């Protein structure tokens, strides 16, 4: 009996002695930080800055798809309907690539706005750290809006981290967004350090390069030329002697800013689409352009394998974007060659075509490097056409083609020849259907044609 009671008591002790209510109901979260603990001390600042780069990264990967696949650079060779729609030019508002680009843009904008709201209140942050992080936030937010504006048109202007404000927010005008972008770029240029750690991070030159592109898109030729010149003249960058280096290596000598992936954090998105699955392959038109004489070494952007040939597969593969093990998994945002192209176009538009300080000088820098025939003296119109083609070869698969054709007004001419399904309303992507479903202010605000 005594034994029994002892046993009974020990069971009870076991039940209640060993555990307290708090222990059960308030387990400490593991490997996560609650909101109130983020960005409240100086050592959080670099961590959040990395978080911003990480959020921004998704935009650039998706912009390769929007920039080159909406246009005539790619063919669809796989199973995903989002890419099939881009391949057959029957783009719908259900397109998952559109949804991914949109949500990545606002993911990055959120982190940038978080920094703007919280960083000024964090005590003890050094001025250089503060400037660098604020500058980075401005540049990456500006770039996010830049991609958003030229892909979707006037998009909602999100300036806070207030969830209630931002879940029911209408589209802003194109002008409003442009003003924010310019403001962000200028702010970034003044705050950012001259030399970032490497081209995976942004410095003053990246802000200038962004402005060069901004003015080019707005056809403000003089400013575009000035900004491009500022970057070129900085002497921080030199053209790689071999074009192949651009295809097969990261952090080249001409890299101004590229989003970085390394072996531990590369999800292999583009490699998977272009190489492993070959879901997306170069279009016949792109192959012809890259194989032409004037392309020179830029032919190395693609490769052919006979075993891939068959069915609707032309056997060609995009060479850029290797696996996590390779040295070419970054995605270029700005590199020196683009600055030459921007300046050349700006100069040509200002009728500075040949001779010293002319477009010819700039374009031939790239031709020379690619071991392609140099451009002779040509007319302004001819030069502009040459530059369009040059951009297609030089910046192939870096996400420029569609944006270029739209800004020059050439998109309908070029794309109607490429696909009978092309519609003039494809100068913008659709606002993702899910956004319209979840944001009442966007109802009825869809881009025309979708």
């Amino acid at each position: 009996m005594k034994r029994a009671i002892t046993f009974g008591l020990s069971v009870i002790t076991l039940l209640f002695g060993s555990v307290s209510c708090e222990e059960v109901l308030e387990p400490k979260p593991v490997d996560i930080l609650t909101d109130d603990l983020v960005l409240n001390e100086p050592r959080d600042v670099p961590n959040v800055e990395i978080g911003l780069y990480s959020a921004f990264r998704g935009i650039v990967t998706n912009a390769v798809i929007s920039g080159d696949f909406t246009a005539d650079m790619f063919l669809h060779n796989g199973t995903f309907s989002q890419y099939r729609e881009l391949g057959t030019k029957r783009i719908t508002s259900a397109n998952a690539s559109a949804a991914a680009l949109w949500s990545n843009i606002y993911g990055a904008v959120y982190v940038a706005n978080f920094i703007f709201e919280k960083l000024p209140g964090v005590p003890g942050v050094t001025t250089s750290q503060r400037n660098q992080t604020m500058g980075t936030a401005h540049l990456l937010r500006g770039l996010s809006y830049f991609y958003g504006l030229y892909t979707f048109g006037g998009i909602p202007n999100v300036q806070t981290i207030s969830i209630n404000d931002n879940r029911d927010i209408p589209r802003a005008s194109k002008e409003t967004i442009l003003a924010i972008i310019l403001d962000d770029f200028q702010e970034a240029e003044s705050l950012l350090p001259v030399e970032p750690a490497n081209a995976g991070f942004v410095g003053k030159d990246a802000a200038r390069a962004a402005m060069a592109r901004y003015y080019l898109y707005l056809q403000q030729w003089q400013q575009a030329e000035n900004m491009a010149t500022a970057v070129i003249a900085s002497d921080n960058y030199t053209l790689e002697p071999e074009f192949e280096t651009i295809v097969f290596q990261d952090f080249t000598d001409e890299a101004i800013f590229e989003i970085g992936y390394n072996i531990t954090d590369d999800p292999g998105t583009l490699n998977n689409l272009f190489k492993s699955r070959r879901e997306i392959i170069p279009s016949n038109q792109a192959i012809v352009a890259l194989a032409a004489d004037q392309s020179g070494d830029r032919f190395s952007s693609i490769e052919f394998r006979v075993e891939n040939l068959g069915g609707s597969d032309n056997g060609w593969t995009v060479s850029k974007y290797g696996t996590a093990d390779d040295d070419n998994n970054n995605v270029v945002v700005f590199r020196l060659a683009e600055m030459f192209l921007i300046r050349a176009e700006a100069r040509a538009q200002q009728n500075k075509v040949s001779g010293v300080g002319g477009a010819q000088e700039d374009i031939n820098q790239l031709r020379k490097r690619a071991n392609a025939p140099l451009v002779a003296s040509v007319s302004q119109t001819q030069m502009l056409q040459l530059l369009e083609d040059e951009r297609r070869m030089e910046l192939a698969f870096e996400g420029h083609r569609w944006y270029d054709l739209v800004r020059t007004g050439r998109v309908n001419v070029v794309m109607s020849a490429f696909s009978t399904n092309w519609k003039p309303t494809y100068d913008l992507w659709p606002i993702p259907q899910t956004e319209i479903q979840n944001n009442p202010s966007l109802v009825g605000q869809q881009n025309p044609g979708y």
Partner: protein
Amino acid sequence: MIRGLLFLFFLHLSNSIFAQDQVASGVVTSVTEPNGLPGVNVVVKGTTKGSITDLDGKFSLEVPRGSILVFSFIGYKPRELTFNGQNNIEIVLEEELKELNEVVVMGYSSVQKRDITGSITSIKTDKFKEISLTGIDQALQGQAAGVQVVQSSGTPGGGISVRIRGSTSIYASNRPLFVVDGIPVETGTLSLRSFGGQDDNALSLINPGDIESIQILKDASAKAMYGSRAANGVVFITTKRGRKASAVINFDVQRGIIDPVKKVELLDSKNLLTLQREAVTNAGQNPDALGLIPGVTDAVNTDWLDEIFRTGIMQQYQLTLKGGDDNTSYYLSGSYRDEEGVQLNNKFERLSGTINLDEKVTKKLTVGSNMSLSRSLNKRVKGDNFLDGVYSGALKSLPYNVPYDENGFLVGPGSPLYASFPNFNPVAQAVLPRFDAITVKILGGLNAVYQFNEQFRMKSQVSLDYNNVTEDQYESSQTAIGGVLDGVGGQGYGVYIMSAITNFVANTTFSYNQTFGGTHNVSGMVGTEVFRNFSRDGSVTGRLFPSDDFTYINSAGIVDQGSSGRLNRGLFSVFGEGKYDYKDRYLASLGMRVDGSSRFGPGNRFGYFPSISGAWRVTEEEFFESKIINDLKLRASAGFTGNEGIPDYQFLGTWGSTLYNGSPGIGPSQLGNPDLKWESTRELNIGADISLLDGRIQATADVYYNKTFDLLYPRPYATTTGFNNVWSNIGELENKGVELGITTVNMDKLVRWTTDINLSKNVNKVIYLADSIPVYRGYQAEGVSATNIVKEGQPLGTFIGLNFLGVDPATGNAIYDDTNGDGQINNNDQIIIGNAQPKWIGGITNKVSYKRFDATAFFQFSYGNKVLNFTKASLVNSGLDITGNQSPEALRRWQKEGDITDVPKYELGNTVNNYHSNRLLEDGSFVRLKNVGVGYNLPNKISERFYLNNLRVYLSATNLWTHTKYSGADPEVSTLSGSTTAQGIDFYTLPQVRTISVGLNATFK
């Protein structure tokens, strides 16, 4: 077992019989014990004189001529016989039909069935013991009104969705709480890697052969003591235990063969090539240039389904020993099950052992333990949504390719015969990878009951449910991941994942019961419980192996992906109930459970779940007199139940680690919601239990109305917020329904024929959602962003799509309804096209026994449910792409102007003709002969020759026959296993399997 107990008890009596008069002897049998029913009480009426039957059912006692012998035994109708000196008396006892005195274990206490005021369905093991079942959840299928069980596919050990009275929640768990011997056990998937839609199943670790009984608790009253997590119902399982009796050894063996229920038809090379050439030509391209050349391309005609299917072998063995004496009782069992899937290399193997012990330490203290240990080896294969799946690969692979080359070797990457992306080689995808999931489960508990006196009792229990999964995987360089995808494997791909989930439960209850004045019965119980869950996992990935002879990660050239993590959660609960009845005539009970959950923030942790119920046994009234109605009970209950089945820490806004270019940082992971609280369901139930004609007809009927408040779901946010959603409690939905269960004894003479029918209807509707914004779920499909919607006024599982009006005879293009009249066909023209929830479900079991033979036939049906034949979007794809095979339905396509058909023109790259529409939605109603069984108990003469008490042979078959209009392989499938919002989708989903097995059951004494 009760029999054994009585046997020992009456032994004393038989020894004290005086020898006199004439010897009356004979044998007592029953339908289920044709070889003799031991322990039957044989008494001379009006005296204390008597005997009991021995192990062989034989009795012998001396009585005067003319005396009346009464044969009685618990659970059987007593029989009388006037003894006139006859020899070899043969008595067949009939089983008593009244089940009202049966004791039902309900949560923390047990109650006599007659006193139940709630809605409960009991499933006896004899309903499923001879059916080939992997897990206990399968046993519930079609057996109980209000319970819908859908097996996601024919994959052994795969996911099964169980819903009791519909779905009460959108995203919080809809799975019932499974409680085994008082331990809430892990359900759902344990594996940490996706296999394309078909999950593994934690419940498959529990051997159905060890189950004694299953109670399904359905209304608020029955579930009251599990209130906090009982919104989806409770399945209360009790395992077998020993009783006071001499040792009994039972051996059961089952072996059988397994085939898919249906093999879908696909085109042969010749027909496919004609179709593809037409699609290419219609797109204005030259089929020859694309390599589609008659006589060359179609020179090979591979039937890929034949290549990957096999006839599986099932075998199962179980050995049990049970018994006990005055103080100790024991139940020991060991079992082994080995079930081959119908896909090559797919297999589920389980080894399990159970020891349940009870020891009466003193008159007042009893201690007991239950311990079961099981290990399963699940050799998995990919499927469904995965391009490199086996069944999915076989369905879409072109017949132009071959699995083996001319030397008989598997065709792999690098070979000119290899199909490569997106079809690969489905045979190689089955045979080459190693996807071993080894799961170890320990389910154990200790309990102590202390009986203070007649009225007061205390029970304490500590239990553990430990689940450890090791996933040992290697995909060779000849597979899609290991060989084709450079970015992932490139040259072999190895994954090793370990995870352990541990549930601890400790509870103590005090109970009290007393009868006042012989008419007022009062009982009560209070208790407290602590539940803690600890889970940890880790994984590592290796790539670039020297060759396929090296398959473990220590041989990998690059090991660069690894992870580890931990999660803790818990519940703290206090509960109590009080019951009162007056003469068993008026019954009432009150219950309350209060729970604190770590899943909610401060201020919202605790949920309160009361219940009340009452019953009136009309037949106990003095005014009630009927020869027809033996028992009539009217019941009513009301109460609240809860649900907290959401991910942890959702009330907190959090940031997690992120990497950029090799540098670690932090990024936002989720929005917090400090107001997050328990989801609660208000349940109302009215029911009646009736027993007619001496119990030959018994029926139970229930109607219920359950309304769920504070619906937990990730409320979708526009991504302009920086987030996709936040877990919130804004919304309501309802379930209302009727349930009917009838058991009849149609014949009870030489032939005994019984019928069990259950029928139920559940109507589910979402009442409101935050901001009335619908939630879109399911798959993204051609031209639309989702196949499913959760919308106010509609049930869960609602399908959306375009309205397909037919094929334009002039152009061959699909015509869709421009529902918003804007002149364009797009997402905005989607309408609700149907629902996956059935209107009626039910089952009918007929059992016939004649002498030593018995036979069972169990039909199950589902009526009014729609199935989304999403496979058809690929198999009748209007020529969208030419990478996959097509179904013969494609032969009906539009070919020339004037053709009237329902299949659009085939045109390469034309997405519009394949937009997601109700063209893909089909009636999924079915009637299925779920199980048919025949058994024979061998005569004593034969079984005794083998020193056996009983020897039984039986034949059992599952899914033998199905009637359905569904055109796909099987209407009873669901990719996305376990999803509520996107159920009933067939996306390359493996059909159910048909098992035909023979079995042998031997009892030794």
